[in-house]
């Protein structure tokens, strides 16, 4: 088990290294990095200072070493626009994202799990087909459009909800729904297939043979077991939600990480863009690692297999 975990950590470290290398090389190879790393309209002295700091006149592998070194120390550079360290900026925006993502997750599970169970129990019948169309709709409607249409209805026509900003629970409803909507489809699909698998298993047959009422079989015996993979996916998706909310946060002016990324591109604030990508990718690599390790702890088949 320890060997498995160590190897898994090793893989993740390689992933993190490759991640930083990818980002590093893209910035260096596609042109003169000073145009990205130096503020637009900076003086020659500033440009030279940046060249000095990142060692841009040195061989590329030395530059990468410096780059990695500063990342490890938590130095993601200085925001041009806000004139503060990017990491501080990122951390200051994180709470908003950490509020939005679970709210969106709640919506997506509230929609996805019941509809998935219903589709599995009524497989091949009306509710299953309705669920399939719903899932396809979920994947086909861009979340930002869902957001804009929500604003049109609930803010402009009905005047029930505020169209942008944050602060109260009313501000949270529409962005959370728009963000959760897309994921609801994925959660529904997985709930359905997971339920179908469990419903076909031996112990469900036994429960039925014992004469338990169907509702009890589904709710107690099948549902609980079918939920495990769905919750795993939900765990990964929660982290993904923090990192893909850029469009939804832009539509609703929600002050999270996504909005920060949007500001990064509009203000040509490259260090911000780079940090959001690096930290987002890093977060996902680490969560995948945690889930794999957790699974190995829970399920002996996984750790013995290797």
């Amino acid at each position, binding site marked *: 088990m320890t060997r498995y975990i160590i190897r898994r950590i090793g893989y993740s470290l390689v992933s993190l290294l490759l991640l930083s290398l990818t980002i590093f090389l*893209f910035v260096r190879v596609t042109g003169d990095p000073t145009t990205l790393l130096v503020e637009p309209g900076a003086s020659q002295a500033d440009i030279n200072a940046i060249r000095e700091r990142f060692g841009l006149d040195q061989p590329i592998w030395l530059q990468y070493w410096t780059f990695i070194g500063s990342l490890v120390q938590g130095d993601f550079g200085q925001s041009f626009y806000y004139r503060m360290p990017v990491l501080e900026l990122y951390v200051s925006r994180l709470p908003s994202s950490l509020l939005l993502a679970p709210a969106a997750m709640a919506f997506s599970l509230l929609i996805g799990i019941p509809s998935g169970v219903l589709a599995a129990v009524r497989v091949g019948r009306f509710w299953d087909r309705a669920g399939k169309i719903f899932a396809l709709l979920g994947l*086909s409607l*861009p979340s930002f459009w869902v957001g804009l249409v929500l604003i049109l209805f609930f803010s402009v026509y009905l005047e029930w909800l505020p169209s942008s900003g944050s602060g109260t629970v009313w501000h949270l409803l529409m962005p959370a729904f728009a963000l959760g909507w897309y994921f609801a489809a994925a959660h529904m699909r997985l709930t359905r297939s997971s339920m179908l698998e469990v419903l076909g298993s031996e112990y469900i047959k036994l429960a039925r043979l014992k004469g338990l009422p169907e509702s009890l079989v589904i709710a107690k015996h099948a549902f609980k077991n079918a939920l495990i993979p769905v919750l795993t996916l939900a765990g990964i998706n929660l982290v993904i939600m923090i990192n893909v909310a*850029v469009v939804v946060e832009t539509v609703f002016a929600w002050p999270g990480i996504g909005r920060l990324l949007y500001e990064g591109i509009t203000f040509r604030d490259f260090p911000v863009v780079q940090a959001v*990508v690096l930290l*987002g*990718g890093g977060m*996902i690599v680490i969560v995948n690692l945690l889930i794999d390790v957790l699974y190995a702890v829970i399920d002996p088949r996984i750790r013995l297999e290797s």
Partner: protein
Amino acid sequence: MAMRSEAVPLTSRADFFRGLEGFPLLPVLILAGVAFVAIFANVLAPYDPEVGSLAARFHPPAWQAGGSSEHLLGTDHLGRDVLSRLIFGARVSMVVGFTAVMVAGAVGTGLGILSGYLGGWVDQVIMRITDTWLALPALTFAIFLTAIVGPSEMNIVVILGAVYWTRYARVIRGEVLSLKEREFVRLAIVAGCSKWSIMRRHILPNVINSAIVLGTLMLGVVIVTEAALSFLGVGVPPPKPAWGLMLADGKKGLMVGYWWLTVLPGLCIMLMVLSANLLGDWLRVKLDPQLRQL
């Protein structure tokens, strides 16, 4: 057991129609319609999509009070005809969508075959890169890349290709791993075929179905991503009429209730993406039983 790659001969007309069971006619018609509109945009569009008249700003669609038959679907904040912009927008979505899917498909399929067939360190390197790139949220990664190379239609295609090839590489590699063990590949090795020619003549034709299925399913994803990039202002540069860009412009009239600027481009995106997904779903079941559980 019949080989999956063998074409089943169609004996009669009845068989032919059975093969088309559940054929998503409406989605295919919609996609064909969008393609038609995209190709003949110059002829079909009543106005120049990039030029408006400021005297005719924010006209509502013809059927609404204040609308006129001159602008069937109304005008935007610069007085440009919405219908014409939607028509030319179809062209942008089609061109960017199809080429990006093909770029991603070509790179991903190629690397997937190399990775699966050659194995060893080639496999290790390609799969490590694939895993890492898959960990990056696609939209964020695409935004990062546009921030470096700058937005243009051509760049968007390359960027979307660079972001999405990993999905193909993963699936195709898996297929190749099982194909590699099959009799006909072993026979080819014994017969003295070079690795290159085995990959090209024996492996590639057998994974092309999966690549097509994936491509159809990816089309929707790519179109939505392009729209999102354009919406954020790092996609297709204005004044070109892209649906995502129209949505961004539509925000200017949203709070005063100019719904047509928001609802119509979104409906176009939805129709096209939904059609591509329905077609992809059908193809998946028809062409590739192995992908059914995806």
